[in-house]
């Protein structure tokens, strides 16, 4: 039996592309916030403040920030269960995200969804979806609604490499392409579907190639390079916005932490993780900004302090939140007043 090679590491070892200081501050600040926020969430999980599933995106921050940066306020976002970074980058208040992780009534979804189900409809953030590939058909429908109502918005649909094995991925790409709908399919390929390596679940490990079967334009980008990813997302989003139909952008990234807090990580070697950590998207971006004289070290340190402070405020907000009264358990099963059954 032929053995498959390990998935290709992105080749670049440095962040590429030009950036102005204001944007740099904004993006690095967001990446740091996601990192500090999730590090804190992991601590709070160990402390028993957060329960259930908690999926961290540490290592994948460049994709979150780059993806959301290309969108307008009118665009829709459909996300996954690993969505804290997407939500924070979209501007969902960190306190509301943290309170949701706690399950408090001041959380983004009144605490009912928890880590995997952050919704903020005002920001057109249509949720973390905990069914792998479950969000793709919803994104197609949101895009269809925009098309039918002649709105210029696009829908960004984030999903992982695991989703590519699901029928809903293939059905959705086909339908979106057939109807030329404005969907930006953003695959965050972190090389593992929970514990199953890409080469162990895909016969073709180059995910970007899969668009061709549905006549969907596609590309792959180094998801550890925030500038390259931002440029690729911007270009893809422009194409989608122009009415050319959907686009599939594969962002190659890596999750530094376990799949969830329950995961003993028996399926991958520590050396592999260490190798990827040498391409930490935050470290790479920092080096680029400092090296290029765009931001000074002290300025970057201040951004980090700000991220830590924002995280602490988010925790305080969550701590101060109330629990939803049990009397409201059946509220909002239906929009209309009905007996639950």
């Amino acid at each position, binding site marked *: 039996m032929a053995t498959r090679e390990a998935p290709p590491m992105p080749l670049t070892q440095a962040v590429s592309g030009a950036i102005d200081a204001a944007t740099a501050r904004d993006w690095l600040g967001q990446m740091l916030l996601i990192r500090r926020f999730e590090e804190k969430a992991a601590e709070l999980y160990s402390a028993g403040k957060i329960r259930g599933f908690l999926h961290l995106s540490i290592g994948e921050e460049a994709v979150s920030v780059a993806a959301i940066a290309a969108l307008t306020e009118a665009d829709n976002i459909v996300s996954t269960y690993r969505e804290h970074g997407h939500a924070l980058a979209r501007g969902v208040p960190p306190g509301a995200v943290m309170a949701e992780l706690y399950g408090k009534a001041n959380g983004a979804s009144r605490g*009912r*969804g928890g880590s995997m189900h952050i919704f903020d409809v005002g920001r057109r953030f249509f*949720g973390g979806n905990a069914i792998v590939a479950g969000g793709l058909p919803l994104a197609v429908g949101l895009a269809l*609604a925009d098309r039918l109502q002649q709105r210029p918005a696009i829908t960004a649909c984030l999903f992982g490499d695991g989703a590519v094995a699901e029928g809903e991925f293939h059905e*959705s790409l086909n339908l979106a392409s057939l109807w030329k709908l404005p969907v930006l399919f953003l695959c965050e390929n972190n090389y593992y579907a929970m514990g199953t390596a890409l080469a162990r679940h895909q016969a073709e490990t180059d995910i970007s190639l899969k668009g061709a079967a549905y006549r969907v334009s596609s590309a792959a980008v180094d998801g550890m390079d925030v500038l390259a990813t931002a440029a690729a997302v911007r270009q893809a989003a422009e194409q989608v916005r122009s009415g050319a139909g959907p686009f599939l952008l594969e962002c190659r990234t890596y999750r530094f932490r376990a799949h969830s807090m329950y995961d003993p990580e028996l399926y991958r070697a520590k050396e592999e993780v260490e190798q990827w950590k040498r391409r930490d998207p935050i470290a790479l971006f920092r080096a680029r900004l400092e090296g290029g004289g765009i931001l000074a070290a002290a300025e970057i340190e201040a951004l980090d302090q700000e991220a830590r402070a924002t995280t602490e405020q988010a925790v305080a907000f969550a701590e101060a939140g109330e629990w939803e009264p049990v009397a409201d358990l059946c509220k909002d099963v239906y929009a209309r007043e*009905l007996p639950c059954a």
Partner: protein
Amino acid sequence: MRMTYREALRTALTEALSTDPRVFLMGEDVGRYGGAYAASKGLLEQFGPDRVRDTPLSESAFVGAGIGAALGGMRPIVEVMTVNFSLLALDQVVNSAATLRHMSGGQLNVPLVVRMATGGGRQVAAQHSHSLEGWYAHVPGIRVVAPATAHDARWMLPAALREPDPVFIFEHAMLYPEEGEVGEEPGPLPLFAAAIRRPGRDVTVIAHGGSVGKALAAAEQLAKEGIEAEVLDLRSLRPLDDATILESVRRCHRAVVVDEGWRSGSLAAEIASRISEEAFFDLDAPVARVCSAEVPIPYPKHLEDAALPQPDRICAAVRGVLQPAQAAAGVKA
């Protein structure tokens, strides 16, 4: 005005597309083919391909797209050809349509209408004869209705489109050619209340969809024997109209539940439980059930007939509850 169930549906679809620009219809073969059951015949020509959309055979994608379009401000009507194929979309129904409002803390609602054919009786064998509306009725967050008459086929659709929540309409496949009287639109939302189709005093026969006609045929036969059976059409399977069911049972003191679903874990089981919980001391006999035999529905007519509820089995169940001593030996499955 007399028309077939199919024509009633087409009239309702035409009206919906004419009066609300947010409404569109999508599903497999709803356009150029005219609908597998011809409910949408002519609508593509009348309303164009933007509003009458043929989809690929991708149940999960187009049901999910219906949910997404509803979130985006549209009023989609999704036709899934039959309940059998709807299983391919069950993820979107149960994990998205039913959960989004509650799970988002009330931020979202999904004003989606999904229509599909259900039921057996046409000799199309096991994979095309399921009656799984009871499964859907299990799920909080969606509403489930079953029009049993042309009148209800005509008026349940506009009522469903007025709902802010996802509504699933189950159309029994045997009913499409059935003709019936279609009256004026009833007042606000009576379609989601159960209806007494034939008043009686000796026993309440509870049915829905394709079983209502069978229950009425049974009642006709029983009347000749001096038994006055009341036939109750559930119409809404979720939520159930407990008040109407219990009022009838308390008056008649006996109940037979007819359900084309399999008996184990069925909607009939739920109804029998509610009657036992709420009206036990009003009963003169245990509640009886007439359900499908617990087999995949077979192709040959004699076996299919034997598998599905039939008027003679309903009559036997009624006689059984009227003579409790004989009930022990009476009809079960």
